């Protein structure tokens, strides 16, 4: 049997399950548990297949220009590297954690519809397509599948004006950004006459392209992708959307969605940012692009963290902080070296655990119309919900990047990568913005532990969310105390 069949298994599995869960939804009648269980099962199966591919001889794909038509069954539209397999696992994990936490949350706020689970599976399918894309078409389909599912999910509470408003804003701005992304793809296609990223990279290496089209194409691609990861000039939608959407959906969008968007950034950057000096790329040389991305990244973290300070709503505060975290992850793309891309893996993993954990704590604490998630409502949480308060404190410490937790090492590797490629000033900006961020993360902890309130939030029921929270806690602690575990794992598998 051809090895490629096994390598492509995660993609095939998630696509098949995405269709099957829709059929199951049609035939299962009033039974919601079976859809829920099938959703979890399909994500587990996808993650399992991805783990299995890691044990095979996976090609280590550092530079797309280096490989030539090695994937014949999929006609060179997909790439199977350890990097993409790792991200498959990450996306499936985020889907599982979200689904476990969603069950009680969505029936608390509205109704539990079976479509919710189908949509999450479809969104994960879109992300898996992104992580395996070697063709601009594949990348576009993945991004759009993911985004359209997010538009629906953020408007899930359709009787609540905030939810619908966030869906409308996300939809209008998201599809506007898709237009730019698409135009960028069209011009890159015009510059090199190919849609396949490895062929494009080879054309660029051979100086065989139209510099004008490529310049405009890259600029438009940067605009579209910055929209999708909510980087600085295009970050305005993120706080509104993340605040209005159902909390568990926000958890999913702001972690897995962001990781997928960052991953598409990496794919584009690897193909279009050659690591050598290319005389024909005067306007879009690697140095210029790195400089532009560095400025974007610095501005994103500063704006995100500074605006987060003044927020009273915790969900909105976390939304602004997620803007800042996108800025940190961009540092890895700026560095454009192996350590940078490894750093993104570490950061994405740790960010996934801590951000999903923080949002799930919010989701179990908030009341029916999510009106009690302001900072004042969290005063004296230590008395009413001591365990949740402690968990939230751990996630906050990790998000702030304090030493014994996973968030610290994520930042450490990215900062190291940026210094290695000569962007010391970016690292200094990142450190300053981390220090700023400590203020509001610790502020929440102060509210929870060192202030007393007359009417604290009632004791929350955890149900299945406790599983998600437990996994998040384990992730934050494990990779915090033993960061080499993840780095070694990644070193072995590649």
């Amino acid at each position, binding site marked *: 049997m051809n090895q490629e069949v096994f390598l492509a298994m995660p993609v095939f599995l998630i696509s098949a399950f995405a*269709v099957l869960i*829709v*059929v199951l*939804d*049609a*035939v299962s009648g009033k039974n919601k548990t079976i859809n829920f269980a099938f959703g979890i099962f399909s994500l587990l199966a996808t993650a399992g297949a991805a783990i299995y591919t890691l044990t095979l001889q996976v090609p280590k794909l550092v530079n797309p220009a280096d490989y030539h038509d090695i994937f014949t069954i999929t006609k060179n539209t997909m790439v199977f590297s350890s990097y993409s397999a790792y991200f498959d696992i990450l996306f499936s994990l985020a889907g599982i954690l979200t689904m476990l936490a969603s069950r009680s949350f969505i029936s608390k706020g509205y109704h539990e519809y079976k479509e919710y689970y189908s949509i999450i599976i479809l969104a994960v399918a879109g992300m898996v397509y992104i992580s395996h894309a070697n063709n601009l078409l594949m990348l576009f389909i993945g991004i759009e599948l993911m985004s359209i599912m997010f538009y629906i999910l953020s408007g899930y509470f359709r009787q609540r004006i905030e939810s619908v408003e966030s869906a409308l804003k996300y939809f209008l701005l998201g599809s506007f950004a898709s237009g730019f992304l698409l135009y960028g793809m069209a011009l890159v296609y015009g510059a090199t006459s190919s849609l396949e990223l490895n062929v494009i990279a080879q054309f660029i290496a051979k100086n065989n392209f139209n510099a004008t089209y490529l310049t405009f194409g890259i600029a438009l691609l940067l605009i579209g992708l910055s929209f999708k990861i909510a980087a600085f000039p295009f970050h305005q939608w993120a706080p509104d959307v993340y605040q209005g959407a159902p909390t568990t959906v926000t958890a999913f969008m702001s972690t897995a969605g962001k990781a997928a968007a960052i991953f598409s950034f990496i794919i584009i950057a690897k193909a279009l940012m050659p690591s050598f000096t290319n005389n024909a790329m005067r306007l879009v040389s690697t140095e210029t692009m790195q400089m532009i991305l560095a400025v974007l990244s610095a501005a994103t973290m500063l704006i995100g963290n500074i605006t987060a300070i003044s927020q009273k709503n915790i969900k909105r505060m976390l939304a602004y902080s997620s803007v800042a975290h996108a800025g940190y992850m961009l540092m890895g793309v700026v560095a454009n070296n192996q350590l940078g891309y490894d750093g993104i893996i570490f950061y994405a993993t740790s960010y996934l655990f801590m951000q999903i954990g923080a949002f799930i704590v919010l989701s179990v604490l908030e009341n029916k119309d999510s009106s009690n998630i302001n900072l004042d409502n969290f005063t004296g949480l230590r008395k009413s919900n001591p365990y949740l308060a402690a968990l939230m404190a751990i996630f906050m410490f990790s998000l702030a990047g304090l030493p014994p937790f996973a968030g610290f090492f994520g930042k450490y590797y990215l900062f190291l990568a940026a210094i290695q490629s000569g962007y010391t000033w970016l690292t200094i900006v990142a450190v300053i913005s981390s220090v700023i961020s400590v203020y509001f993360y610790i502020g929440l902890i102060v509210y929870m532990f060192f202030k007393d309130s007359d009417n604290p939030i009632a004791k929350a029921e955890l149900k299945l969310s406790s599983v998600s929270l437990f996994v998040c806690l384990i992730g934050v602690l494990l990779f915090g105390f033993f960061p080499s575990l993840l780095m070694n794992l990644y070193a072995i598998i590649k």
Partner: protein
Amino acid sequence: MIETYLPLIIMLVFGFGIAVVFMLLSEWLGARRFTPGKVSTYESGMPPRGTARERFSVKFYMIAVSFIVFDVEVVFMYPWAVQLGTLGISAFIAMMFFIAILFAGYFWELRKGGLDWD
């Protein structure tokens, strides 16, 4: 270059000219009478009733959206159908998969009552 387009240009000039001349002639020569039927909104000869901004049932919307979605999917079959002879059996199987996936969506809509009128 321009000579090849000359017949087209002549035709355009004539067509446009005749339309303008006829409009001006009817404006100058014709009599003007305003009846209630003439000044009201044109609705294919029917007397207009009610406001044009009336809301209609969401059922029409459901059908329209289903039509948009399934109508556009057919677009993928055109290139396949044109090249079916050269593509052979593998393309046929692939298209059957595609149609099966479409049917899954159609089946879902049917079961959820998306096509019921009442």
